[in-house]
């Protein structure tokens, strides 16, 4: 593998995928800032402003998970159904470079919300005190989560065969992943049995780890268990992208 070429290809795909922002800056603004803010506002109202740290950290989690999964799945599906994916497959680039480039562009769209809400969370005291180790773990976990949801988006896009069904299914899956997890609210409000069901959702591990690290509320053992689970899931999801699953039809 020529790492330099792979990195150049990832950058080219990401920049190419972000070109629409120049044409539709208002849509970018809406997608990058208004959408996460709507959910933040909704949960602040529901919790009557008492759970601000949950809502703000939830918005930050949303900013990573939502564009990565949704952007990846929808971009690849669009290319698949217009024939562009066939064109890309026949370019001298690897499936991994194409996938990560697409995913990186989606993540870049979420950057304004990520920065804005992180700054706001620090300002209102929802984050901290944070240790250096905690910050490192959060960064590693964020990268792993990004890889996991890129892989999930890739799997979904490559296995779908009908455009309408696929696009609607992606929206349902995304909503389940975000809202059936402790991203925006504590699972303490749920019945005991349902809390265990939440552990089938990968966002739960990321939410727990993220919150434990940034509010210094969890034990290191639980943080490391969450990190190990996220790591294992990311490796599992990266393999299909790396090997170009469904790149050639059977």
């Amino acid at each position: 593998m020529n790492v330099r070429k792979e990195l150049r290809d990832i950058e080219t795909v990401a920049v190419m995928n972000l070109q629409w922002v120049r044409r539709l800056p208002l849509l970018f603004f809406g997608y990058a800032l208004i959408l996460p803010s709507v959910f933040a506002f909704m949960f602040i109202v529901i919790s009557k402003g008492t759970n601000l740290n949950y809502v703000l950290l939830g918005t930050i989690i949303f900013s990573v998970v939502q564009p990565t999964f949704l952007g990846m799945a929808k971009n690849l599906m669009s290319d698949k159904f217009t024939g562009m994916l066939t064109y890309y497959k026949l370019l001298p680039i690897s499936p991994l470079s194409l996938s990560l480039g697409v995913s990186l562009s989606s993540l870049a769209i979420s950057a304004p919300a990520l920065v804005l809400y992180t700054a706001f969370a620090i300002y209102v005291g929802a984050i901290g005190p944070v240790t250096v180790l905690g910050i490192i773990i959060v960064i590693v976990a964020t990268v792993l989560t990004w890889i996991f949801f890129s892989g999930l988006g890739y799997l979904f896009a490559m296995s779908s065969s009908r455009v309408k069904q696929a696009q609607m299914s992606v929206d349902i899956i995304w909503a389940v992943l975000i809202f059936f997890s402790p991203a925006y609210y504590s699972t303490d409000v749920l019945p005991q049995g349902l809390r265990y069901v939440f552990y089938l959702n990968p966002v739960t591990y990321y939410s727990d780890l993220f919150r434990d690290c940034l509010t210094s509320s969890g034990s290191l053992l639980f943080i490391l268990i969450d990190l190990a689970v996220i790591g294992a899931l990311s490796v599992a999801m990266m393999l299909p992208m790396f090997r170009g699953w469904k790149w050639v039809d059977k």
Partner: protein
Amino acid sequence: MLLVVEAIEVSHLSKTYANGVKANHDISFVIHEGESVGLLGPNGSGKTTLLRQIYGELLSDGGKVTVWGHEVPADMNSIKNVIGVMPQDAIPRTDLPVFLQIYYSLLLRGFDKKEAKATCDKTITSLGIQEYSKAYVLDLSGGTQRKVFLAMCLAHSPKILLLDEPTVGLDIVFRNKIWQTLKTSIVESKKTLLLTSHYPQDIETLCERVICMENGKIRYDGTIPDLLSTTRTDTLERAYLQLMGDSGQ
């Protein structure tokens, strides 16, 4: 000693889909460098399947395909810059201007930025789409979108072009424009062309040889004049209908 490499060599190729549909069976032919060949056949005759097997997007059940001496799909990386492929019904990305579509495809093919820009300008000029250079694909007509896709296939100067129904759904004016573009860009520059079409006129205009397919098998493989002479007809359309057992009367 001069090593002669065939552009495309297909040997005993077969494909049956998972649902049991036999797309093609025991297909063999050779296409020499610089040859223009048309694959003609009705819907479901296996043309697109065959083309997809040749450019490596679809695995074959049996047989062998080599493109420019490299086996497909095992040695795909060696042929990616040798071929230019236009899939059926493909349209370029609608969120990019024409220039950037071609520019980024060249960057991903390993061109540096300066080289990509110059090649992009040259391709746009040679295809006569300068007026659309800054236009977004979304704002272009279907015919112009196909032309842009063609530009993306031609920009890196591939030795072999594999085009799947490049004129499908286009009116006669646009079909003529595509023919002119292909004639100038491919036939006159001695590129190898394999083109599928429902329209005998496309193939008659652009190709010297025709392969007629029916139910996944080759019914005829030879030059167009030979087919006209064998069937005693004056157009490929009549010859084709006669070959398929329908005089069209």
